């Protein structure tokens, strides 16, 4: 394996600190890995502008690269184009669902003013029992990127990753 491929593999296999079931690659936040001499240059995009997990992601990438034999690295964060849940890979979506987090639908795209969302969103399907009888408890759950739901059939709570 070439040096850059090893570096890329090390970076891409780092787990998301907030959702340690999906890798950063599956989350779609790795925007580039390059090898410049013996220094690895990583471009990382934040999910949300204020996401506190970003600092942990940086630390984990640095540590993973050091373990893979790349002690020198530079990690820059990229604001544009803005991250979208559409970049979460198929395997990432499967893993989220396996861990009781229903994956996001297609991200809304707008030209001009953003329309108001007044009607309740259609209920999510319970990732535990498959029932469609669920309710949204809160638009914001443990992190900004997820909402909190409850299943009326099996009584269990679950989360949904919001499309953004």
């Amino acid at each position, binding site marked *: 394996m070439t040096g850059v491929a090893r570096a890329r593999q090390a970076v891409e296999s780092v787990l998301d600190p907030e959702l340690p079931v999906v890798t950063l690659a599956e989350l779609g936040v790795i925007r580039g890995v390059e090898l410049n001499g013996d220094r690895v240059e990583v471009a990382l995009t934040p999910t*949300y502008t*204020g996401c506190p997990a970003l600092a942990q992601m940086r*630390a984990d990438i*640095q540590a993973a690269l050091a373990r893979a034999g790349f002690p020198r690295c530079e990690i*820059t964060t990229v*604001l*544009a184009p803005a991250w979208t849940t559409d970049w979460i890979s198929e395997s990432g979506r499967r893993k989220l669902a396996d861990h009781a987090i229903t994956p996001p639908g297609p991200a809304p795209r707008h030209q001009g*003013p953003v329309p108001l969302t007044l009607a309740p969103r259609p209920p999510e399907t319970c990732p535990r029992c498959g029932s469609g009888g669920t309710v949204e408890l*809160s638009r914001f759950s443990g992190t900004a990127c997820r909402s909190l739901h409850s299943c009326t059939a099996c009584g269990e709570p679950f989360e949904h990753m919001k499309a953004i």
Partner: protein
Amino acid sequence: MPTENLFKALVREDDNGQWAFGTGFTDGLARVDRGVPEGVDRADLAEYCLMLGDDALIYAQRLSEWCSKAPEIEEDIALANIALDLLGHARVLLARVAEVREEGDEDALAYWRDAPQFRNVRLAELDLGPGPGGDFAATMARLLLFSSWRLAIFTRLAGSRDRLLAALAAKGAKEITYHRDHATQWVIRLGAGTSYSRARMTAGLDAVWPYAEELFAPHPVETRLAAQGVAVDPATVRTEVLGVLTEVLAHAELPPPAFVPDGEPHPGRDGEHTEELGPLLDEMQSLVRAMPGATW
């Protein structure tokens, strides 16, 4: 692994990267073209970023005061998450101010300025609770007004000639959409709820309307930069915001907004603030001022 100290087992000695409050955020601007657009006055650009950044910083601080004091735990989390989004915007914007001015950094701007040096709109600083005299309905009224206004500004700012402002606005608009949705749900729930919740919601809206016109009064810096395709003239979003508010209030079975001008057109942008900003800054800045240079 036996350990004598659980804390030491949890933290790693080799880095402090896990602390979100680490400084040096300027790298977040690294992959965006940071040049000042041709013909744009650096002082104007810095001042504009300061206005937008102070709006976000001061409002984030206000919202975070609700954490652990909201009516239910889900609301604690929601308001804290909204505050966190805004804090993220503030960090990018204040880092940009320091970069354009070639002076200081985001921390110096957040912690070492006094009230007259802040450029936020007064709506952001109002003490609407959870302390004495505060009210959850008024808090939701402000969130609806602020996020509707900010979203209208950011959707336009995404086309700014300043690449950094454009990048932040495109990203931030997606986040603010969720803030506005959250406020909308509460305003409808309270307005169309019981006669008691309706009275509280009405009083909450009345508490914020006097600060609405300031949002749409262009400061000369905004006017100059808007003419150059860098800023958004806030007067141009007034109709859209009024339309959004009117639609929400109709669903909440409440009358349309009644903006009442309150003196100077843009006092906050000129550093003229209410007496409620001082105590907010006292709390936000106390640790850094008591222990300058302290780190985790």
